[in-house]
């Protein structure tokens, strides 16, 4: 069927991101006859599956525009080097979705849903994610929309996408694939991450009264989520900070939700095993009348960009100007949503306390600023410094013939950097020299950190541009895993009242 409907050279949008994948359709597409279907221009959020690469290997697709390719970044780089595929650009999610409505409108879209009824109405459940966005862009420009579904039903649980946007429905051989990407086992959080979480809570959330925020995906931010009901409670911050979230249903947020910290959470996507828990908390999550969650990647990214006061995330490398990148030589990975979430939205006009605090001076006309935090250990492992003189992204950009180096978050958007050494309040630096000195002061014994002069660091502490743990009232001897409200997946299940049903790979019992 795909061979009949797809013309060579078509722009084909294949639904697939870091969570949900239309994998039945992607496997089917990779199996078409390349004599009949070839030279497609592939549009895809995340190049995640082996058959995505097979599309290039077999000549079925020769152009690609995408956001992220983490799991296949090495093989993608090889395909590019071999000249089998040309990258149009590496986008953010929001940027790629936007282009679907301008110059990259799909001729055909392959999407995934949980249920379809006889009219083609679709239920996409907690993992609605980007399905409505792709379907809308395609259907309203006379494109063809094909949906794989887990099952055909008489009446959909709820209608997430109306049937008249859909041209064809096919029942997949197995339910669409979902990666439980946002599940972090508290077992793996160490004392250093607890220390950094304490620094963030005292030095940033408490100080700036941050209420709306987004957390990245790592163990560092999971540690923050898990000390809210313990350390945060002791500081009397419940209801004062961390009330409104743009975040997937992180299992590590369960203790904070159950302790009354969280008023709302809007999600990009679902998280495997969190369905029943989320359905039981409609006071916190966005749920339908059927009870299940409705996510929306485009709206959550928009909200994360415009309506939150803070983004905090981790990275692999930071240069002396606080530019950061997760790019590694030999891999073309991209960044997903981080550049939108981790940048100052210059179109924002609504004020808030934290947003206004990021600016100084008393000019008649001034703007506020989003808080953008990079949270890293000074070393990634033995002998692998996080703070480097030059990002690997620079060399990668050159070797992959990219017109610009793939920087994830630009230094001029970063307001704070936190390491185990302390907090650098970069937004308070008077000039670029002071900014670099502040960053070096918390860069530990990395090559960048070793340049810090002890006297200058003391002066920066005195003027509040740098804070060490003792300056924030954080005792290192308290930095201990016992501060985590849950220390294992099992304890998260207990916090959820048995509603959280972790995927098997996270079960140790």
């Amino acid at each position, binding site marked *: 069927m795909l061979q009949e409907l797809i013309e060579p050279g078509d722009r084909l949008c294949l639904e697939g991101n870091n969570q949900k994948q239309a994998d039945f359709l992607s496997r089917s597409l990779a199996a078409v006859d390349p004599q009949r279907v070839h030279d497609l221009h592939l549009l895809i959020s995340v190049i995640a599956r082996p058959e995505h690469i097979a599309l290039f290997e077999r000549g079925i697709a020769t152009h690609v525009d995408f956001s992220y390719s983490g799991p296949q970044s090495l093989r993608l780089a090889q395909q590019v080097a071999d000249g089998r595929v040309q990258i149009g650009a590496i986008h953010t999610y929001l940027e790629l979705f936007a282009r679907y409505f301008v110059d990259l409108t799909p001729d055909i879209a392959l999407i995934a849903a949980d249920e379809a009824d006889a009219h083609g109405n679709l239920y996409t459940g907690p993992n609605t994610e980007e399905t409505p966005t792709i379907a809308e862009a395609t259907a309203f420009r006379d494109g063809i929309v094909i949906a794989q579904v887990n099952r055909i039903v008489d009446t959909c649980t709820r209608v997430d996408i109306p049937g008249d946007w859909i041209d064809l429905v096919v029942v997949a051989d197995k339910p669409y694939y979902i990666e439980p990407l946002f599940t972090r086992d508290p077992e793996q959080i*160490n004392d250093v991450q607890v220390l950094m979480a304490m620094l963030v809570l005292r030095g940033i959330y408490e100080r700036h009264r941050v209420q709306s925020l987004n957390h990245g995906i790592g163990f560092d931010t999971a540690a923050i989520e898990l000390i809210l009901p313990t350390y945060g409670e002791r500081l009397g911050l419940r209801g004062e900070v961390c009330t409104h979230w743009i975040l997937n249903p992180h299992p590590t947020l369960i203790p904070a939700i159950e302790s009354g910290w969280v008023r709302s959470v809007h999600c990009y996507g679902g998280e495997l095993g969190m369905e029943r828990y989320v359905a039981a908390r409609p006071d916190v999550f966005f749920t339908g009348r059927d009870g299940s969650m409705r996510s929306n990647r485009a709206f959550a990214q928009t909200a994360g960009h415009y309506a939150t006061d803070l983004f905090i995330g981790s990275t692999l490398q930071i240069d002396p100007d606080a530019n950061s990148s997760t790019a590694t030589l030999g891999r073309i990975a991209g960044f997903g949503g981080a550049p939108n979430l981790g940048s100052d939205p210059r179109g924002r006009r609504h004020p808030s306390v934290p947003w206004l605090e990021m600016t100084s001076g008393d000019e008649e006309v001034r703007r506020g600023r989003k808080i953008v935090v990079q949270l890293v250990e000074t070393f990634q492992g033995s*002998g692998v410094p996080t703070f480097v003189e030059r990002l690997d992204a620079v060399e990668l950009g050159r070797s992959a013939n990219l017109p610009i180096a793939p920087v994830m978050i630009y230094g001029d958007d970063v307001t704070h950097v936190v390491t185990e050494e302390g907090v650098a309040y970069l937004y308070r630096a008077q000039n670029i020299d002071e900014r670099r000195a502040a960053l070096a002061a918390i860069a*530990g014994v990395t090559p960048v950190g070793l340049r810090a002069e002890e006297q200058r660091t003391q002066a920066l502490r005195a003027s509040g541009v740098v804070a060490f743990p003792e300056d924030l009232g954080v005792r290192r001897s308290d930095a201990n895993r016992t501060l985590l409200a849950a220390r294992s997946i099992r304890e998260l299940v207990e916090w959820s009242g048995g509603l959280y049903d972790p995927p098997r790979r996270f079960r140790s019992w």
Partner: protein
Amino acid sequence: MIETLSYEYPASDAVDRRAHVGVVASGNCEILLEPAQNGNASVVVRTSVTGFGATWNAVLARFFVRNPVAVQIEINDFGATPAVVALRLEQALEAAR
């Protein structure tokens, strides 16, 4: 293979008591600290990760510049990052004071 490294630093301040923090587990280290009588700081590192003598010296030198304490320290390391080592040193000192 275990590498043994020894370092000495000038020191002036005294601490009250011994301290023992951390454990020898993957990515972690154990630190035993006791007051020294000779007015110097001396450190012996036993590590399972070889070839990082300069990094150890940088971590320890920075610690003793900020905390010139006369102590004998023994570190048993199993691949701890500099962050973990620095945290354990500070924790040992907090416990010894």
